[in-house]
Structures are given as C-alpha cells and as structure tokens.
C-alpha cells in the first residue's frame, strides 16, 4: 500500500529535478529546509528522526538536495521527507512537507477491531512493518 502524506500526496513521486525546484521555491520564500526519516509509517507518527539540523542561510537548492541524497545513502529503505518551515510571525508552522523517498515494498496496514464494554467497537490501525524491530522493517 502506497503511503501518502504531506503537500503533494495526490501526485506520483517527484523526480530529483522537481524536488530541487520545490526547494528553490521554499528558499525563495525564506523558509529553511530540513530532512527527516523514519521506518514507522503509522499516519499518527508525527515525530520523525531528524537528519542533521535544519539548514539555515542557504540560497541554492543544491545544498539541500545534497543532504537528501546523503540521507538516502544512509537509509535506503526508510521513508524520507523534506520540510520547509515558515518562521514568519503569524504563521510559524511547517509550510511545505513532502516525501522524497519510500521503501521499495510497503506492506500496508491491518485494521484491528477490539470489543470494549457495552458492545462498543474500538478500531486500531496496525502497520505490518512495525511487526519487526526498528531498523529491520524494510530490508
């Protein structure tokens, strides 16, 4: 199951050229970029691992793409996303966030139903990938 999240979730994966044009847009707006990765694909997992610190004071997309590629080299089977943060007063939020790498095979999720008191049903999504320990999930 292809996991989607972030800004371009409705589009096919971006090529490196398209990624660097998006980075160029973010940098032109004055948004510093950062790279994050994870191997826990659960949609509510919002805290991904940081790949280095956010990159401030850059003017050219090549520097950000360099870090994306370094991260891809180190974690070829993880999800990697790129965030751009808008620090403007009144916004102060992630302005752009999209996935730049995904594992080759994504096993997807299972829906668990749990009977609670009074015949209520509780639902839980369980990622098959998380059956295995961290670091071995997509290898």
């Amino acid at each position, binding site marked *: 199951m292809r996991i989607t999240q972030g*800004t*371009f979730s409705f*589009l096919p994966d*971006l*090529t490196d*050229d*398209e990624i660097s*044009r*998006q980075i160029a*847009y*973010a940098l032109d707006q004055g948004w510093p970029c950062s790279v994050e990765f994870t191997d826990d694909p659960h949609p509510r997992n919002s805290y991904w691992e940081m790949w*280095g610190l956010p*990159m401030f*004071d*850059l*003017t*050219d*997309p*090549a*520097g*950000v793409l*360099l*870090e994306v590629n370094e991260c891809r080299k180190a974690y070829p089977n993880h999800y990697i996303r790129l965030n751009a943060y*808008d620090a403007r007063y009144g*916004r102060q939020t992630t*302005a*752009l966030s999209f996935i730049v790498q995904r594992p080759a095979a994504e096993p997807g999720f299972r829906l668990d139903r749990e009977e609670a008191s009074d015949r209520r049903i509780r639902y839980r999504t369980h990622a098959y990938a998380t059956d295995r320990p961290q670091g071995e999930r997509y290898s």
Partner: protein
Amino acid sequence: MTEFSMRNGSPVAPGEPLPPPEVLPPDARVDLARERADSHADEVLDALDAELIGLVPVKTRIREIAALLLIDRVRGRFGIDSGRPNLHMCFTGSPGTGKTTVAVRLAELLHRLGYIRKGHLVSVTRDDLVGQYVGHTAPKTKEVLKRAMGGVLFIDEAYYLYRAENERDYGQEAIEILLQVMENNRDDLVVVLAGYKDRMDSFFSSNPGMSSRIAHHIDFPDYATDELEAIGRLMTAREGYRLSDEAEPVFRSYLERRREQPRFANARSVRNALERARLRHASRLLAAGGEVTRDDLTTLRPEDFLASRVFET
C-alpha cells in the same frame, strides 16, 4: 493552475519538466554580438575596467573566461556537448591588490553568463571551515559549502588551512572535504583561494591534489605609483573630496615614500592615507574656525598630507 498554486501561500504544484531546448540545425548562423548583448556580461566587464585600475593580467584572464563561457553557450545551442569548464581559481598577490573585489565581480559575471545559478559570494577564512575538536570540522566545512552552492566560495588566506608543523591539525580534514566537493559538485560552486604568493606556493607544494584541481592561477601584480595615484583619485571622488592642485604632487611623493616603507599594502594603504588626510582636514577646518565654503569642505590641501609620519625622515 494559478488559482490553486497561490492558495494559502502554498507552493506551486510541480509543473511539466522543462522542454529540452531546441537544437539548431548544423547550417544555422548565430549572431555573436547579439548573444553577447543578451548575456549582459559586458556591463560587468566594463565596470571591472572602469572601477579597477591596472591589473591587466587579471582583466585579460577574466575576459578570456567570459569569452569561453559565451562560446560554450553558443556551442550548446548547436548541440555540441563540451563539458563544463573547470573554473576553480587561485588569486595570489600582495595585500591590497584587489583580490576580494575581483572575486565579487567574478561571481556576478559567472552568474550573468549562466555558469552559476545565484551569483552570491561567500567569503570565509580558516575559522569558518576548521573546527575546534574532533568531529567538529566536517559539519562546519559542509555547512559553509552548502551555503556557497550556486555561487562562489572565496577562501581568504587559504594557506592557513594547512599547518605543516602540526600533523594532527584539523585543517587537513577541511582540505579533504573541500577537494571532494570541488571534484563532485563542480556544477554547484566555484572555489576561489586567495593569499600571498610565496605562502600559497608552499601550500600547493604540500597539497598537490589542490593545485591540480585549480585551473586558473591568477597573479595580482603590485600597483605602480601612477596607478596608486589613480586609485587615490577614484577613492577621493567617491567620498566627495578632491585634491587641490598643490596637493597632487605632495600626494604623489607621499605614495613614493610610503611604497619604500615596510607593511605597504597597495590600495589599502592608499585608503588609510586618505582616511588620515580626512581627519587632518576636519581638524584643520575646525581649528581655523569662521565660515567655510563648499570648496573648503571638499578640498584636501598639501598640509593634510605633509603632516604624515612618512615625511618625517
């Protein structure tokens, strides 16, 4: 598309990839003068000529580079692939011969000719590249390199990076990263090393890999006295001053005497001399009191220079 792309300040959706540029047929003709005008490179070159005195070998080399890039661009339009020329450079010369100033102009020129994407200059020294403890150097150097991407990285007094007397110095690590990026990311940045001639030579002899990766070794000659005079005149004019007729020969003999003295730093010494003349000019006017005219306020007189230490001997 436009309506969507602007909503909420959110980014533009990725467009179609850029169409490959049309390749001209082999028998087409391209107007070089037109191409040249389109690049706006001449404005930078003319400014270089007008605002920098002397430096003939430097200007010649930069014109050659501009010509090469322009011709490469035209060749590209015919579909002739010639690979990117290597433009890493080394500027050697005495202090105050305009190495930094030329680097700024160079960044602008390369940007106009489409060799680099942004055309900014990041000027660093050893402090910005070399860390203070194990494992500090690599991230620090990479940070600087990332910042310089799309522009020119200017490393002033580059020979400090290598300290022969201390083999555990972290400078070596910075040099290795620098070499790697100069080789692998040639499309992304231009590295310019600068420093005094003799010390750069010994730096290169202990780092042969560095020397061979730099295509252009440009030597900045010392200025002749009349060139220094012209620089002085340019500086005074820019600050809204002028030399009185009697002050001109005094300024000239000041420069001749100053050249003979130790720690002469070419244009920088001229600047300092003029700064001190301004000080004396101001206190002379205040001491005289009374009314002043516009002429008094803008004219430097011989006594402003004659009070200098240089004339004591």
